[in-house]
């Protein structure tokens, strides 16, 4: 008796399982075909870091090196600057090795002048390791882009 019970319950379970599978077959596929279709994301998405800029296109960075000191990967961000005649800080070099960056966002959080921001660009695949060392030109966003990003983030908060 026990034996027959076991068999019948087994058959019913398999039948239920197959019905389940058939039920799920009519759901739309969840695949996102990446290069053509891109997933939607929220403005908070942490892509690589980027430098914001003022209206006149200059960087907001004042070379305080806060970001360097909170970065988990010691010598990742490299900043060089000089002061011009008015005492303004001019950034000569701002480079980051994105191959080693863990995109944690610490530097953005600490930045006192909001000179750094997380861009929404997450497509960082390159053929060469050295292509991932981003210089100031690659990192800098235009004024419009900056405003757009900041607005998105503000809307969000």
């Amino acid at each position, binding site marked *: 008796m026990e034996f027959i019970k076991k068999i019948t319950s087994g058959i019913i379970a*398999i039948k239920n*399982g*197959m019905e*389940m*599978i*058939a039920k*799920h*077959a009519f*759901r*739309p*596929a*969840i*695949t996102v*075909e990446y290069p053509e279709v891109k997933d939607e994301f929220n403005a908070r998405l942490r892509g690589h870091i980027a430098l914001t800029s003022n209206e006149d296109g200059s960087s907001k960075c004042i070379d305080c090196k806060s970001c360097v000191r909170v970065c988990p990967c010691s010598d990742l961000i490299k900043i060089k600057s000089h002061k011009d005649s008015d005492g303004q800080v001019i950034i000569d070099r701002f480079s980051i090795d994105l191959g080693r960056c863990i995109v944690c966002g610490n530097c953005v959080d600490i930045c006192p002048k909001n000179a750094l921001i997380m861009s929404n660009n997450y497509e960082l695949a390159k053929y060469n390791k050295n292509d991932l060392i981003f210089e100031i030109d690659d990192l800098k966003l235009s004024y419009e882009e900056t405003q757009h990003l900041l607005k998105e983030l503000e809307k969000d908060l």
Partner: protein
Amino acid sequence: MYDLYLKLFTYLSLPKWLGIVSWPVIPFIGIAALMVLMVLFLVLLERKFLALLTIRKGPNRVGPYGLFQTVADAIKLLFKEDIIPTNTEKILFSIAPVVFFFPVMAVYGLIPFAHNWVAINASCGLILMLAISSVSILGLLSAGWASNNKYSILGAMRSVAQAISYELPLVLSALGIVVLSGTMNLNKIALGQENIFGWYIFPSFLGFIIFLICTLAELNRVPFDLPEAESELVSGYNTEYSGMKFALFFLAEYAALFVYSALIVTLFLGGYSSPFGGYIFGFLPYLKKIIFLEQAFWLMSKTFGIILLIMWTRATLPRLRADQLMSFSWKFLLPLSFLNLLFVALLKYFIG
């Protein structure tokens, strides 16, 4: 047809003996072509169908709807480097895929695709088919042994144990059909089930279930895919194979899937005969000559029904364990198949 074929030779001013000699070869060429095409289609079908069941999209990059995906895969496999690992039995290693492949191909010749459309119309076709198809296990064993890989040898040992223990219930449940139909000729078995009420699945439903389960085991498919259990044995006996040799294994597996499904249809679901008794083409005098097309259509549609059922179970079930597999066969299926045989024999004796 034969006359037409010979006329072609005289028309092309080729010697007549060439036509006489080549005539019996034609079905085999046809079968080989059919088999390769079928496998290409089946692989695509399986991938697409499984994708449908598991809410994915499946291959959709090569060609429209990914239709040429398997062709691309086949070309890739053909051009791949043929690696023979060191310390392997080189001869056995190379022969094994062929040994695995050939019985499956030979078995295609025994399937009646339409009335009298069968390459080898043997009077004991059923037994011959079962006998030939069980040879392919040798290929698996030698592949596993020759690879000099521990996963492979485990997989090969599993597959041999599995094939031998599932052969018995398989043959016994097929015997029920022999009892019912009184013949071993597959063509005649199919002829014996003229409409849906004459199908042998009704008198021997138990036999059908046993045959289906054993087929899954013979084909090494889920839930009996222990010889190539991916999560346990990486990929079992074909771990070391690559390129064309791997393609042969792959080809043979899917070819066997089709052939066993066709066998199930022939034995239990009326084979090429229409489920409604008569044929649509049979009513129309023009089309009577190509009635075999309709018959082939019925066989194919039923076969694909069975294939889809097998794929569906693949999406549903987990894998059995080796000892459970054995005890399931010897302690459960074998007594059950004897019971089935007895039942069928009694049915035949008393009802006729």
